[in-house]
Structure formats: C-alpha cells, structure tokens
C-alpha cells in the first residue's frame, strides 16, 4: 500500500484545507464586495458578467457585481442601485460597467463605474467619510463626487467622442489629462478627445429639455413604490389618451407624478367610475398628485399640454405610497407615555395604568385641536388651532401653518397664541402642535410642542412658486414643496453635532440649532449619567415638507429616526416611566412597558420643525420644535434594584 496512496490522500487533505482557508478568507473580506441591483423601468437590457464574453437578457432584480457590464437597448430606462442608497439611471443605448463596488469598512462604500457610451444620471447618497463615487468615461475623463446629482453624457454622434458632465445638484470634480474642473449645481463641462475639461458653464437648454432629464427629475419627485412608467410627447392643446394607473384596493395611497421640460402641463386622475377625479396643473414641473386610499377599482390618468412647445416630451409615473406601519406603534407609544406622565405628575406612579384617556386633559386638548384641523379645506385662510381643554385661545392673534391645498394634511404644524389656564398664574404664550396622520379619515397623531425662549416664529407667508419666489404675507394660496435630501442632511448634521464636531450648517451642541430646546433638558443633563449611544438617520417614508417664508427662510418638517441605547453604569437600571421629570411636559420616552431594565435599545421617530435661513444671512439653522415617539425597542431585564447615577454625562435632547 503504498506510498502513492499516502501521497494522494495527503494531497487531497491539504487541498481540502487550502480550499477551506480560501473560502474563509473570502468570507472575511466578502462584506466589501456586495452587489448592485438592476431595475428596468422600460425596454430591455443585457448584462455581461465579469469574466464572460457572452451577455444575457437582464431582468429587474438582477444583481451586478464588480466587473459586470450592463447595456441598455432602444427605448429603455434602467437603474442600478448601490448598497449605500446611491443610484445610477441609464438612458437608451447606454453602456456601463460596475468596475468596483467595495466596502472597506462597515457603512462606507466605494463605487467606481466606467461609462462607455450613452447617458447616465447619478443620484449619489450623502457619502460617509472615506466613501467615494467615481465615474470614468472616454477621453480619460474621471468624475468624482461627494453627495450630489449629476449626469454623464458620452456623445459620439458627431464622429469624435465627447464627454459632457452636467451637475444638477452639488459639486462634481471632472478630471482629464491632469486638469481638474469643479462643476457646481446647474453647471456643465465637456471634454473632447485629447483635450482637458472646458470651463464650467451653465447647463445647455438642450440638456435641460432633454427627455432623459425630464424623466429623472420627475422620478426624483416620486416617493412610492413604482408601478409603471409612461412617456410621450404632446403639443399645446393636446391631451393624451387615458393611461392605466393600476388597480387600487381602497386602502393604498395612489401617487401620480408628471414631469415635462417647462411650459404648462396638467395631470388628471380618472377614478374607477370613469370620471375625472382630480386635475392638477402647473407651470413648474414636476407635479405629484397623491390620492390617499384611492377607491377600489381601476384607475387611469391623462396628461394635458396646456401651454407648450410642439411635441414637448413628458414622463408620468404611477406608484403606490405605503404608509409606514410604525405610525400606529408611534401613536400607541405616545399615548402610553402621556398617561404615564400624567400618573407621575399626580403622584400615582404605582397605580394601575388607566384603560382610557377620556378624562385626560391632554387628550381633550388634542381632540379639540384635531376637530379644528379637520375643518381645513383647500384655500382656507389661517385658522384657529387651540380652542378648549386646558387652554383658551386668543382669537385676535392666531397663526397657523396649513399643508398643501391639493395634498393630504399628513403633516401639519399649528401655531397659536394661547393661555394655559391650568397654571397659577395662567401662562400666556405661543403654543405649537405638530400633527401627522396617514391620510384623510385616519387618526391624527398630535403632540403639543413647547416653543422655547429665543425661538422666533417665522411670519406666515408661503409662496406658490416654490422656494425661490417671495410672496406677500397675505397670500392665501399656500404651496408645498418637497426636499427629499433634507432628512439625510439634517441627520448628518445632528450626528456631527452630537460628537461635538459641528457641521457646516450646524455648529454643534452649543449652537443655536438645538440649544434652545436643549436648555429645557438641562435638568436631565445634570441628573443622569446614562450612556446614550445614538445615531440619527433620515426616515424617507415620511415626506419632508418645506415652506418658503417671507424672509427667505424655509420652514421644514423633517422626520428622522434615531437608534438610542440607555445603559446606566454601575448596575443601575432604566426606569419606565422615569420619576425624573421636570416642571414642563417632558419625560423620557422609553419603549418597554412600565418597569425597570438593565438597558433599553430603541428606535425613535423624531419629527422636527426647523427653520433654514438663507445662506447669505449668515444665520444657522434653528429648530423650533419637535416630536418624538418610540417605534421599536429591545430591553434586557434589570438584575438589581438599581437607580440612575448621579454624575454628569454626555446626554442630549432635541
């Protein structure tokens, strides 16, 4: 028996060990080599896998890994989504390689693409430190960005290949032959073969009116899960044939979005009964029409060119907007917190939790306000907000912000002058209520927000031309615009602020951004030394609303989420509800039921009302109110009868 058998056996085992070691080694670094997700909106595409010379028909949901190449066909619109949330959209006859897709460390992604031809539109997520997003193109062009929206056009129509880079938002560095040109939002540069990039210049009208531009700008305004896409062109006075919008089940919000280059277009939703349900028109694209809980049945829509050039292109998107299910959780948690707080204030901490809030003054107050809010209709003038309960309103000095006349009142801030009669002496001042609901007919989630000293309330004046147009404070035609990136920006700023580093718009904990409200919690800061580990992130499920104010500032409602862990040192325990509440209506909001816990990790929903001043003003962002609710949590049991510590610690509140 032989030596040969021994050698072969040994060799086989050595090979097995080597193979195992190889698999484990790859697994250790595999977190850095994830995939990108391909979506096909229209048309067809082929994918050539790395290392293969053959290409295959691509489908939505296909995963692209480093080295894979995607080529779109005629009349095609496709997208490649990356793990960090960034997206590259491809026009017809475009040719893109995912050259590198790596994550050198958790939460940081390096994306490197090579575009051989066609048009690509990139929406780059706000990049974490160390992350990068780069597109290489012919003529030795390299495009590097850090959180922006830009387009790369490889044009070979005139013979020689030229590369044009349009930056629609943010800064882009374009490098060719050792020369770098920085392009800011609204600017463009081009690179001819053998040349360096041209000086930055405004984006051409041809590119602004290009069908692919219209497609992307309209798609950016879409919030829901995309169901269908339709495109075409219309001349002035023309109306498209009814286009299918899908089958509604009666409980889902239907969202229609229309984009066009300019002029004036209209969008009409056609209900299941075949009649026109609603028409919205605008001379500023895009238009988004949200139909909450669209009636069950088959919906359609049509597009009208009211004032347009001949054969203006348009794109229409149909999507379902799903309400985040934690709205209900948040509402329940808030109510639990409310009556826990009331019990504490009444010194009945050990008493059983009441089963009804009917007798609670807070509920009465909310109900009164909600009844009034429900009266708001399109075009209503400013109305009274607070009227009864523990408060009486000053009828001659009421202010309120109302939501979009054409949209659902799903986020709403009310401000009014009121007198709190339950205090002795009675307190007089401004009060603010932040309302959210999932749509008409759904329950409102309301929170009274104390307006703290020094926070000046903006004048109520909302323009109907979006951000840039000033309007008279007396204007009654309120208008709603959306800032989809605001949540991510605010979250990033808050995270920087919590580290004490400060952001470009947010100078840190001691700045005016959160300090006014932080002051209300100095009591806690002096009392607790709980370890709080938190991290803010955008909650894209909630639309961000922005109002242009008379002084050029923008009032934004933005919803964030926060992961937070309460972990007292030295065996202490988190008490729910905490007995440490101040003179105001504040308390810790902890998710688990009443009890003591060694630690609590929870996800919080935080709705903020902030005022973003004009850049030229030199002012910083000011938070004027907020509302928090716990949505999910995990807890570990308390092993001892601990109490919160007494030292100081890094603890912050908004």
């Amino acid at each position, binding site marked *: 028996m*032989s030596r040969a058998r021994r050698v072969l056996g*040994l060799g086989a*085992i050595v090979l097995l060990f080597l193979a195992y070691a190889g698999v484990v080694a790859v697994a*250790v670094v595999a977190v850095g080599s*994830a995939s990108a997700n391909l979506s096909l909106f229209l048309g067809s595409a082929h994918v050539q896998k790395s290392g293969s010379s053959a290409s295959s028909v691509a489908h939505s*949901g296909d995963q692209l890994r480093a080295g894979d190449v995607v080529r779109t066909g005629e009349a095609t619109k496709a997208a490649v989504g990356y793990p960090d949330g960034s997206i590259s959209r491809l026009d017809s006859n475009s040719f893109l390689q995912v050259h590198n897709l790596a994550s050198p460390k958790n939460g940081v992604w390096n994306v490197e693409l090579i575009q051989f031809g066609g048009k690509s539109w990139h929406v780059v997520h706000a990049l974490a430190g160390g992350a990068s997003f780069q597109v290489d193109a012919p003529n030795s062009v390299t495009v590097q960005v850090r959180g922006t929206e830009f387009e790369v056009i490889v044009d070979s129509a005139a013979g020689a290949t030229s590369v044009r880079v349009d930056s629609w938002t943010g800064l882009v560095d374009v490098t060719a032959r050792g020369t770098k040109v920085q392009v800011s939002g609204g600017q463009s540069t081009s690179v001819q073969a053998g040349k360096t990039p041209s000086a930055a210049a405004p984006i051409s009208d041809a590119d602004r009116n290009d069908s692919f531009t219209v497609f992307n700008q309209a798609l950016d305004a879409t919030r829901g899960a995309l169901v269908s896409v339709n495109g075409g062109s219309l001349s002035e006075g023309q109306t498209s044939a009814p286009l299918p919008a899908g089958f509604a089940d009666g409980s889902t919000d239907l969202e229609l979005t229309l984009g066009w280059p300019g002029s004036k277009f209209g969008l009409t939703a056609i209900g299941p009964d075949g009649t026109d349900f609603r028409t919205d028109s605008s001379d500023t694209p895009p238009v988004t029409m949200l139909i909450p809980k669209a009636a069950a049945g088959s919906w359609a829509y049509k597009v009208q060119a009211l004032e347009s050039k001949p054969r203006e292109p348009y794109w229409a998107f149909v999507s379902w907007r799903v309400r*985040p299910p*934690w709205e209900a959780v948040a509402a329940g948690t808030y109510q639990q917190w409310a009556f826990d707080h009331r019990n504490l204030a009444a010194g009945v901490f050990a008493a059983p939790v009441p089963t009804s809030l009917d007798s609670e003054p807070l509920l009465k107050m909310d109900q009164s306000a909600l009844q009034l809010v429900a009266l708001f209709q399109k075009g209503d003038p400013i109305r009274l907000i607070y009227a009864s309960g523990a408060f009486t309103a000053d009828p001659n000095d009421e202010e309120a912000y109302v939501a979009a006349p054409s949209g659902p009142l799903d986020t709403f801030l009310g401000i009014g002058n009121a007198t709190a009669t339950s205090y002795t002496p009675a307190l007089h001042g401004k009060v603010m209520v932040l309302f959210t609901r999932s749509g008409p007919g759904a329950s409102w989630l309301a929170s009274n927000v104390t307006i703290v000293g020094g926070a000046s309330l903006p004048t109520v004046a909302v323009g109907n031309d979006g951000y840039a147009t000033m309007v008279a404070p007396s204007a009654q035609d309120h208008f709603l615009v959306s800032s989809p990136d605001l949540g991510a920006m605010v979250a990033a700023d808050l995270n920087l602020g919590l580290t004490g580093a400060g952001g470009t718009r947010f100078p840190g904990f001691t700045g005016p951004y959160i300090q006014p409200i932080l002051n209300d919690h100095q009591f806690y800061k002096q009392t607790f030394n709980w370890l709080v580990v938190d991290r803010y*992130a955008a909650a894209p499920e909630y639309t961000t609303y922005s109002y242009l104010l008379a002084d050029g500032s923008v009032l934004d409602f933005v919803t964030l989420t926060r992961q937070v862990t309460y972990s007292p040192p030295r065996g202490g325990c988190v008490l729910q509800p905490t007995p440490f509440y101040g003179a105001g209506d504040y308390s810790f909001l902890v998710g688990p039921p009443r009890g003591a816990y060694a630690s609590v990790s929870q*996800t919080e929903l935080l709705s903020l009302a902030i005022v973003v001043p004009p850049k030229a003003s030199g002012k910083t962002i000011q938070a004027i109110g907020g509302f928090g609710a716990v949505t999910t949590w995990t807890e570990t049991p308390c092993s001892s009868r601990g109490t919160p510590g007494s030292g100081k610690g890094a603890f912050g509140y908004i």
Partner: protein
Amino acid sequence: MSSASGTIVVGRLFTALLGAMALSLAFAQVAAADIQGGCKAWAIGSQSGSVDLTSVSELHLLRGDVLAVRGLAPQAQTRLDVTVYLFGLAIPMPEVGGLHETDNSQTQIVLSTYSRYTRVVDLSATTNDCTGSLLVSVDDQSPILNTVGGAGAILGLLGLLGVLKAAFGKGRIGGRIGGALAGFIGGAGVSLLLQQMLWIDPRNTAGLAPPIAGLLLGVLLAGTLKRAPRAPATPAQPVVEPAPDPPTLSAPAEGLAP
C-alpha cells in the same frame, strides 16, 4: 500499491465529487421569483428604499435598515405558512397564524437585531390564495461574522480535522464511518458559509453538494494516511556459545561444521 492504485483513488475522488454535484443538480430547484395569486407586497427599508416584492426575488438591505413590510390581498387570508430554505430543502416554520384581513402591515423590523444571526435568509410564504418567495440579504453584514456563518466556519474546520483524524486511522469500518460523519459535518459547515456568501442559493439543492462530497471524501480518505505497520522484528538468531576449544593438540579446524 503503486501508481495504479493511486489512479483508482483519484478516480474515486472525482467520482465522489461528480456524484455529489450530479445528485444536487438533479434535485436542484429554485423557488418562484415573485408573488403569485393576486397579492401584493412592498418592503420599505429606511436606508434601502422601497421595493415592490411582487416582481422581485431578492431583497438587498443594509444593517442600518429598519424594514417595514406591507401586504395586500384580494380577500382575507386566514392561513399563513412560512417556509425557510436551507441547503435547498424547505423547512416549514411553526404556524404563525393568518392575517384575517386584506391589508396587513407588519411591525417594523430592525435589521441589525437579526443580521447578527444570519446575513442571508431565504423564505417562502403561502396563504389561502397566494404564494411567494424571497431571498433577503443584508449586504453590509459580514458572511462570517454572524451566528450562522460563524457556525459554518467552525463546523467546516471541525469536519476537516475529523477527516484528517480518520485519514490517520486504520481505515476500518468504524474509522470510515467517523470520516464520513466528519466530512458531512465539515461540508455542511462550508455549505452554510457559502450560502451566507451567496455563492450558493439557499433555495438550490446544490447546497447539498458540499456535505455529500464531504461524506464521500471522509469515507475515501479514511486510513489513507495511516502509518505503515512496523516491519516485524527479525527473529533473533540463537546465540551459539562458541564451543570451547577442544582439548586437542592438533591444529584448529578450518571451519565449523553446520
């Protein structure tokens, strides 16, 4: 044995591997890639965005995601059976009850709570009217730094050590069974790791190839490295005491007679 026997061993190895592959591929099946029966579902990741699950077979998420899933059904669904796939085998989960409504909004899921246990989950659900399947991958979770992947790596190593031990054994029936068991465990561990790396689709019975190959290799390699038996000691020659010289005065003999 010589090179001929070595060829036989190599042939057996290839046969074993090919057999395992063929067996796996013969039973290979990939679950349906979308939702059938008129139901709709969406997943909304707080970082990954919304995905229409009706037409997508893979859901790629991030650890920081808070996931909300919403389902719509044409009528109330009173039955919900959930099956998890592993090694291509369907493992039914305990009955989780029906939805009893047409619009079911699940409580949000904090991905980081679960991604520490597994990076990849492949499951299917069946209700009264609808069926669907979905592969969920948490892309920025390490395939090995989670419970399933880590356990796979450990099992793989233990299995290899077991095969090695069996190879040093005598190759008898007990040793071969031990080798087979170790090979199976090691292969299963490696398969788990490969599924966490998405090199093997958990819905595909190709996931059985590594444990089967390991089993066969464990059998074949048992005893291949056993130490050659010591050559039996040469029987001791009887010690012959030299005979005392005969008391003779004659010349010594030229040699001893046998």
